[in-house]
């Protein structure tokens, strides 16, 4: 297999020769293995993906083309096609230049040898553990869908200013969907564990948690309309933060006036208890990389600090527009599970690991403190919420009533809504210490006051 960095360098060289003023090549190699299972293994999968894109500039005209190959003739095609596109493009008055300097941060635990070297047998054994754990909880519970995947992601970037870098990360994910009950009365639940490190996969814990909850969901009820105080499990709340913030706190969204945060830097936008930081170098973070997709080193960038809006996330393009340094947030994909490999896209800013600060309570203490309300474990459609108007809406697919400080009956099927901007200002101040993630967004278990419940 061709080495990805020399290939990128060769592409840059060729692009200059063909007439570009500036050129950049970004190359990718992904080795992905997957086991798809139910109560037994249904399929095993192995994928090798390679590709390269060329971004070339003539004056202030930018062209971009990508190919799913690292072969010389395909690279020639990428250069030629991007040249055609650049010539046809209109000038971008904001174009300054490709980065003149690359940077590489020191990060820990993002590439795991065990994931790279795991044999088919290792993968099968991990799946066996998931299957047997579910069976041990209760023989009536069964797995309806599940997968285990391991990914080895290598990227290289080079440009005509003499910059070049290479990086490698790993990512493993175990997902399980289980059901309990009968045809007439079913309970289902889903759990996922995602990690850069093999040994941090929580296979047994998630298989057990999913099974136990599915048994309870068999008896789920619907509840009437009203207002309720709620407690969101950490990963579910991370899903809300992901839906409401990740696309609007980027410099791109702000510069283009599609963010509600325009003009609010330095202003209080949340209560003092709320701090949200993009931790680009978080140890073993799902979004941690040595450098971003522009070649800038990843860093720590405060977004909201003690309630004050502090800053936005920049890539090279948006940063140079404001004559400031990039925050190392260039992404060629959005989120960590995208359906297209990253080389196919031009960079734009996006959070690396967006973290809502935890507190020192336990999840149980939050539930006790809430006394009466709703505990939210799984929702659907939260991603359909509107981060521009702040209208948050999520449909509960798995949750429990909180009665006298304890979890009681299972609940599903109601719509929970609130205005996220109001929520930030004192309605989500009570948080636990237990950070967990939805993709690369991290949050603790959080109490959210006063949500509207649309039910029966």
């Amino acid at each position, binding site marked *: 297999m061709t080495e990805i960095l020399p290939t990128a360098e060769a592409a840059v060289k060729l692009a200059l020769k063909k007439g570009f003023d500036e050129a950049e090549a970004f190359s990718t190699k992904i080795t992905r293995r997957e*086991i*798809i299972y139910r109560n*037994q*293994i*249904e*399929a*095993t*999968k*192995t*994928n*090798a993906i390679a*590709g390269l894109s060329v971004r070339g500039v003539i004056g202030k005209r930018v062209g*971009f*083309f*990508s*190919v*799913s190959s690292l072969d010389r003739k395909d690279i020639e*095609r990428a250069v030629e096609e991007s040249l055609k*596109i650049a*010539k*046809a*493009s*209109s000038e*971008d008055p*904001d174009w300054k230049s490709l980065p003149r300097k690359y940077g590489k941060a020191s990060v820990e635990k993002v590439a795991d040898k065990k994931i790279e070297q795991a044999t*088919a047998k290792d*993968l099968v054994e991990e*799946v066996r553990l998931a*299957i047997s754990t579910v069976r041990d909880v209760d023989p009536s519970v069964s797995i*309806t*869908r599940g*997968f285990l995947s391991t990914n080895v992601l290598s990227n290289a970037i080079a440009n005509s200013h003499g910059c070049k870098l290479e990086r490698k990360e790993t990512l493993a994910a175990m997902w399980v969907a289980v*059901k309990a009950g009968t*045809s007439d009365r*079913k309970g*289902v639940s889903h759990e996922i564990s995602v990690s850069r490190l093999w040994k941090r996969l929580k296979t047994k814990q998630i298989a057990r948690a999913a099974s136990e909850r599915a048994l309870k969901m068999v008896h*789920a009820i619907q509840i009437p309309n009203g207002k309720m105080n709620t407690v969101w499990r950490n990963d579910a709340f991370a899903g809300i933060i992901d839906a409401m913030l990740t696309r609007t706190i980027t410099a791109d969204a702000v510069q*283009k*006036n*599609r963010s509600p945060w325009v003009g609010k830097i330095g202003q209080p936008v949340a209560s003092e208890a709320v701090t949200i930081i993009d931790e680009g170098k978080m140890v073993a973070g799902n979004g941690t990389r040595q450098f971003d997709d522009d070649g800038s080193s990843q860093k720590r960038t405060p977004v909201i600090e003690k309630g004050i809006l502090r800053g936005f996330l920049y890539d090279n393009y948006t940063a140079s527009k404001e004559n400031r340094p990039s925050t190392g947030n260039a992404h060629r994909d959005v989120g960590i599970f995208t*359906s297209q490999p990253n080389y*196919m896209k031009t960079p734009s800013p996006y959070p690396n690991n967006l973290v809502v600060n935890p507190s020192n309570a336990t999840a149980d203490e939050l539930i006790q403190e809430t006394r009466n309300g709703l505990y939210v474990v799984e929702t*659907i*459609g939260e991603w*359909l919420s*509107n981060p521009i*108007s702040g*209208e948050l*809406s*999520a*449909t509960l*697919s798995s949750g429990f009533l909180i009665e006298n400080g304890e979890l009681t009956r299972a609940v*599903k*099927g*109601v*719509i929970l809504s609130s205005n996220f901007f109001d929520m930030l200002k004192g309605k989500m101040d009570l948080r636990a210490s237990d950070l967990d993630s939805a993709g690369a967004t991290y949050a603790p278990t959080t109490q959210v006051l006063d949500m*509207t*419940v*649309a*039910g029966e």
Partner: protein
Amino acid sequence: MEDLLKNLVNRALDLGARYADARFQDLRQTLIMAENGSLRSYESDRSTGIGIRVLVGGAWGIASSTVLKKADLRRKVSEAIRMAKAAKKLSTSIQLAKVKPVEASVEVPVKRNPDDVPPDVKVKVVLEANKAAVTGADIKNSSSRLGFLHDVRMFLSSEGTKVKTDITTSGFSQLSVAAANGSMERVPEQRSQCAGYEFIEGGDWNAFAAEVSQLASKVVVAPMPPAGTYPAVLDPELIGLFLHEALGHASEGDLVATKESVLEGRLGDSIASEIVTVFDDGNIAGGYVVPFDDEGVPKTKTTVIEKGRLRSFLLSRDTAIELGLEPTGNARAQNFEHKPIVRMTNMYMQPGDLSFEELVKDIEYGFYVRGRGSLGGQVDVGGGTFTFRAGPSYLIEKGELKHMVRAVNFAGKVLETLKTIEAVGKDFTVTTSVFGGCGKDGQLAKVGDGGPHVRLGKLTIGGRAN
């Protein structure tokens, strides 16, 4: 290419597979984006790859590569077989329903190949529309996109099936953000068709983009609807999304076979009111063209609900065996690297005979729920709860359309909501999208959906508490 695929299939049989297929894909995508009056990006790519699927013992072994060299690919075949064998002790016992081998080639007729249209012509279209969308000072952001997809797939199996499909899709999308009285709102909307550049040439995208902005201007000052459960009339765009979430996913055979779906065991049962008939069809005007699935099985018109009764599930060859039914040509893969899984194609409801006025006139207090500006939906097939986000909608009072309300989320229960369908309109529209798709198990599939205007007795609306 055919020889290479044949070689790989034979290699798999030699190594002990009892069935094998190989899929080649050549995919060209172009996305041109303009924002606030200037070109934001012009991304274009070509990806090619081969996926091999082998049946060894009871499980599938799947391998894929973007390196199209025979020696490499032959090694991939061995790897697929080796991995499937490693899973042997824990594997299922997959059987495939018999199908007649097919040899066919289907191409969406294209008058003008989008790849042959000079890039500057396309850039001009998207830039002009982008500027036309700035209809007033309240429009803070205008994002416009032109998208093209040219998906060529070749499928070859050890049973002698050989199928080639060549599908071109073109589309335009507009997102407008409006601000007023300290509040902001966005409206996304798109139009696409399985066709060439002639679809773009035939549309007035400046007018389309301006209309989206006008809608954003109106909805940003509209009130939230009250939270609760109300009667509703859904428009054709939204009834498609509604069916997709409220029925479609639950009718997918893989989810039925594992008993995850709430529709399991309900074939022949009444699951909707008698006036409801629903199809999944690979070939319907306006929808996405799926002549064959990714197992080489012809996708024909499947009657999912007939006069309220559940008539069929959507099936692949292996789920057909598990459920004792015939395959329906619904095994689809996002691309060459993915395992074909059961997916919808174009799900739509058969029209009835009522006018829009007749649908609305008996509603004392309810909502006219519109698809324009909708973002999609999601379903929990096991729990039976579905949700979708409508576009800007309208209040109905005493049988008449009143003011606009904000776009909010709606929810219902798979087994209950279809029974509350009270009346079916006589109009009919099916649409697809070159930009989005339907996500399942980490794969995105192009789908279409639609139907007539439909009245529901009960739909839960996630607005504000009164």
